[in-house]
């Protein structure tokens, strides 16, 4: 197990270096010059050159990369062109918001997807089955940003019971010791604040979580269907166990491994989905910040954000790999 972890960590480090190089080069060859976006109409050639030098974009590509790599090695991701702040500080400030949202959506998706899969398995022979499949198909087909707009219409306009934007009510005027608002307010038992943060997270959580829940439902339901005809389930059924207990106590344990692997992969897509969903709900995470960074061609910030997204993707995949190994004795023992 330790060897497997070390191997994956080594691979992750190599992948991150690759991501860093590719992103650096791609951003320099992609259209859109950050300096061209901010030069005034009356600026002379010398003014433009001065601006370029001010932001360290006057050197050659290799030299820029070496400077960036050297600073990166020291834990310095540079200064954002558009936000005038250190990139590392900005990421430390915004990443927790995205992590709380993504994990809330993941928990919601796992619970909802799991419940529906179990329900669908129990009712697979009834007239409800095609209805469940159809609804699930619909949830699968609708992408997260469409859910976001639908939720805005329903809970923001027709029945305005939920806040439409932000992470907390601006008029509350509360302060936090950490950037993890949800967790901090929960553990500090500031229930009014916790409730407000939860209310702000509800719609983006649903928008991100519903498509993932549909995927989990489909995969888990199929796995359960296969498991339910295995000998050990038949034996348990002969012993008189109820269908619910058969599913929960016998089939689920074996059906969960493929679902776990797929959920991990889909979770990385969910992280990608935070970009547009955070934008729609004006949720102050790294996804929302990424859009502004791209619009402004804020190269240091885009590089920092891409590295964080890359690291998250790698971390999630590595964790899932290890969980699958841990959950499956055959893999664990080679």
């Amino acid at each position, binding site marked *: 197990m330790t060897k497997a972890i070390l191997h994956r960590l080594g691979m992750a480090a190599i992948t991150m270096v690759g991501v860093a190089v590719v992103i650096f080069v791609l951003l320099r060859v992609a259209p859109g010059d950050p300096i*061209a976006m901010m*030069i005034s109409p009356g*600026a002379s050639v010398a003014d433009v050159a001065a601006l370029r030098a001010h932001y360290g974009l006057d050197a050659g590509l290799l030299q820029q990369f070496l400077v960036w790599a050297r600073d990166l090695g020291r834990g310095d991701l540079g200064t954002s062109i*558009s936000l*005038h702040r250190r990139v590392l500080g900005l990421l430390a400030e915004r990443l927790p918001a995205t992590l709380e949202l993504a994990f809330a959506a993941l928990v919601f998706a796992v619970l909802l997807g799991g419940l529906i899969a179990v329900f669908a398995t129990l009712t697979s022979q009834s007239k409800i089955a095609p209805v469940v499949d159809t609804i699930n198909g619909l949830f699968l087909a609708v992408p997260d940003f469409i859910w976001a707009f639908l939720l805005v219409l329903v809970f923001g306009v027709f029945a305005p019971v939920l806040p439409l*934007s932000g992470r907390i009510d601006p*008029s509350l005027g509360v302060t936090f010791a950490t950037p993890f608002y949800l967790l901090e307010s929960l553990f500090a038992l500031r229930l009014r604040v916790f409730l407000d943060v939860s209310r702000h997270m509800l719609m983006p959580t649903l928008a991100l979580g519903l498509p993932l829940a549909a995927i989990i439902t489909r995969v888990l339901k199929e796995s359960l269907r296969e498991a339910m005809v295995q000998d050990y389930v038949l034996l348990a059924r002969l012993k008189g166990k109820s269908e619910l207990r058969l599913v929960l106590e016998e089939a689920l344990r074996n059906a969960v491994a493929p679902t776990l692997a797929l959920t991990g992969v889909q979770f990385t897509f969910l992280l990608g989905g935070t970009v547009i969903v955070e934008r729609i709900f*004006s949720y*102050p995470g790294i996804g929302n910040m990424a859009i502004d960074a791209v*619009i402004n061609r804020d190269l240091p910030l885009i590089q920092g954000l891409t590295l964080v997204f890359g690291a998250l993707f790698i971390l999630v995949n590595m964790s899932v790999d290890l969980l699958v190994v841990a959950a499956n004795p055959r893999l664990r023992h080679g």
Partner: protein
Amino acid sequence: MVDLNRRQALAVGAAGFLSSLLVGGGADAEAGDTLTIAFNVNLPAFDPTVGPSSVNPTIQAIYRAVYDQYIGQNVDLSLAPGLLTKWGWSDDKTKAWMDVREGVVWHDGSPLTPEDVAWSIERAGDPKGGNPVAFVWGSLGGFKIEGQRITADVKNFDPTVFKWMAFLTGYVLPKAYYTKVGADGFEKKPIGTGPYMVDEYQGNAFLRLKRNDKYWGPKPNFETVIFKFVPDGTSRVAEIESGSADVTLEIPYEEYDRLRAKPGLAGVCKPITDIGMIFITNVEKEMLDENVRQAAVCAIDKDLIAKKLLRGYATPIDTLDAPGYEAYDPSIKTPYDPEKAKQLLAASGYSTEKPVKFRIQTTRGFKPKDYETVQAIVGMWRKVGIDAEIEVYEIAKHYELRAGHKLAPMAFYNWGDAIGDPTCSTGFAMFSPSPHSAWKSKDLDDKIGPLWGEKDEAKRIAGWKAIDKYIAEKAYVIPLVQYSQPIVFKSSLKVTANATGALQPTLVAKA
């Protein structure tokens, strides 16, 4: 007493939590002395003098709430006393003088001094400081202070420098405080002399401001102002429709018409200093043919675009100096005449059967109906013998191509000039040395060049009008429409439209 088992207790708890999520607090904006604005852009940074946000016209609404400009500006673009009460040039225009207002205090309680003003101009004019318009501020130097009066040497005469003091990056910052806390410290806790003080800021989410009770000007109307950053247009519509915001702006014109008809909501939509235009790049041979350029102008029915496509919320224009600008000349006309367009094209050997072909670039969704406008124009052109191929690109690409003089033969763009001075409209858009011009020709440069330093104001404005006329005759650019800015607000409020497009909190009052 009802006994609950573990599952029932969990179920009751979950149901209670879910219902409290849905009923806890409602979505209404804060009533009473709080103004909530669903704003269309995020505030990236607090320093109003450096970086891309400093030249973003929309963000000036926030900067003007926190800081004061050297010189104020009325909603009709005219200048008004700001932190400078009087200003002017010496007779020979070798000196500039400014009188600094007395009795003004910074948000931290320290007094504003003439040193703050002189330092702010010097800092802005430092080419290494990152101010995008350092060339303007750098025209003044050698500051001397006597009492409240600052006198500066004019290094190179720029007749617009005082107008810039009410425009982009023209803000006074606190010398002592900024020097003490540095750039990072200032971003964390910015102070100004403006009507509102920064109370809390969450990037990409909101900015909460508190009334500055020591403000030197009229008492601000609200105790608290909240800017919610809602860049998505649909979400802004939902914010105002649900009552979560008191005011919003820059929504689709269709939604503006729908919302202002609803009970409890009102709207205002007035022309602002933002125009739609088509750049012509004089690189490919088709664009060097005057007949083709003039035909392209004649074939566009701007009235139809303004009335039908933009629902009447735009004004057709014939020069880059729009109505309300100082050098606007209503006598310059480029009328819609498709028959003349056909004749002009025929003179160059083109017809509907053998059309002249070129590319036209446009953004999609960056400005109201930008892509649709270009589509309509291409349709109009097709009827007279112009076959234009549309290429959609991002605005960042536009800037890069324009700076490198590599735009397509024609390119749609919007141009803002919030001080209405011809140097900032026709000047920078059409003068070759400007990195933002697309038509670069000696004949035009010879006419524009002498006006940059013209000391006689009447002669200067007359000169720009003559240039606008010349450009229209030669068809070096295609001005299209002046946009109106839709603002929707609760009918319990009164909003004064600002020709610059900056929705400052001081322009909102209780009805």
